[in-house]
């Protein structure tokens, strides 16, 4: 049995911070996403995949992270979610490019904003960014603001 206690702790700390600051952070992240993608903020829904539905590319993710780092005065590792999820996994985070079952379990804990039927066996690690929404970035910022160790 994999020990998911550290990942659970990250989840709890993020939820705790978002309990009071969610709307404030969401507004800010939404504005940054709209700016980076040059799309009207009103056209961006919280659950829309930035890559699949809004045409974002990896360049845009980098730019977005840089803006959020500057605005919130935090450092966000470029592979933040993977970083939290992969620590101490006996079988690793991925094998042959496919996420391991243990990694999927952890991602379900870390990414409640993603429909659980999207986090399924067979998901490839390079497909993970396709699941990112505005909410995903809100949670990444919250993780750094809560200063939970990676």
């Amino acid at each position, binding site marked *: 049995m994999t020990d998911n206690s550290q990942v659970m702790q990250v989840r709890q700390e993020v939820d705790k911070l978002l309990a009071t600051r969610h709307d404030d952070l969401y507004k800010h992240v939404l504005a940054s996403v709209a700016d980076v993608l040059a799309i009207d903020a009103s056209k961006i829904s919280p659950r829309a995949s930035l890559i699949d539905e809004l045409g974002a590319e990896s*360049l845009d993710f980098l730019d977005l992270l840089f803006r959020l780092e500057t605005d919130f005065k935090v450092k966000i590792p470029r592979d933040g979610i993977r970083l939290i999820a992969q620590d101490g996994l006996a079988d690793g985070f991925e094998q042959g490019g496919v996420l391991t079952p243990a990694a999927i379990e952890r991602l379900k804990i870390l990414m409640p904003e993603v429909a659980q039927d999207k986090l399924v066996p067979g998901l490839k690690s390079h497909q993970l960014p396709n699941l990112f929404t505005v909410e995903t970035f809100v949670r990444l910022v919250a993780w750094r603001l809560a200063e939970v*160790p990676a």
Partner: protein
Amino acid sequence: MMLNGKLALVTGSSRGIGKAIAIRLGELGADVAVNYVTRDGDAKRVVDLLHSMGRRSFAAQADVSDLAALGGLFDRVGAEWGALDIYVNNAIDVAAFGPVARLRPDAWRHTIDSHVTTFLIGSQRAAKLMAGRGGAIVALSSLGSRGYIPGYAPVGVGKAAIESLTRYLAVELGPLGIRVNTVSGGPIDTDALKQFSTYEQMKDASTRLAPGRRMGQPDDIADVVAFLCTNGARWIYGQTLIVDGGLSLLSH
């Protein structure tokens, strides 16, 4: 051992190439300060490994793209050790990556600064701690500094600046007994590289085309960086050594 008693600082050494360099320097007898930004667990593991070799080591958190934090990092080294013999300028911060037509000024500026201004100010501070004892400064560059890698302009241009600055630093710091050189690597198999969408292509190209017939590993770079810090490299000034399994020899 060749670097017995030497004091070293390696920026960005919690993982990847920086970690391999820190460990290699430790294996050769150096005490190593392990700088990191967010990966405190990984940094601690590197420090523990160095301790287990009998070296002095400590983890020092600092985002070296921030000049105030960079200054703080050197303040810490000064406070802990009072001196320095080896400075490895490895960490960078990539905020922009993509087609030149789409690069935005702030992210571009930040990326370039994290290469060249960090190297300049870091070397100034290192030289102060090396006063009276000489030393070695080694920076990291990559093939994208001279050739073209898709999307890589911010980093390639930053690395090109590092290579040029290496020459200026070498000329002016040489008389102080401080040798400055750079190691330029081809694609190296690290977590950082896996984030690029072209990782699989780079791996495939290296394995099929490079005379070395494989992708570079962190130790391939670390061994050359370490050599440049030893007395064996005493007559090498201001050079950029290309360490790429021969990849750049090919015209693609």
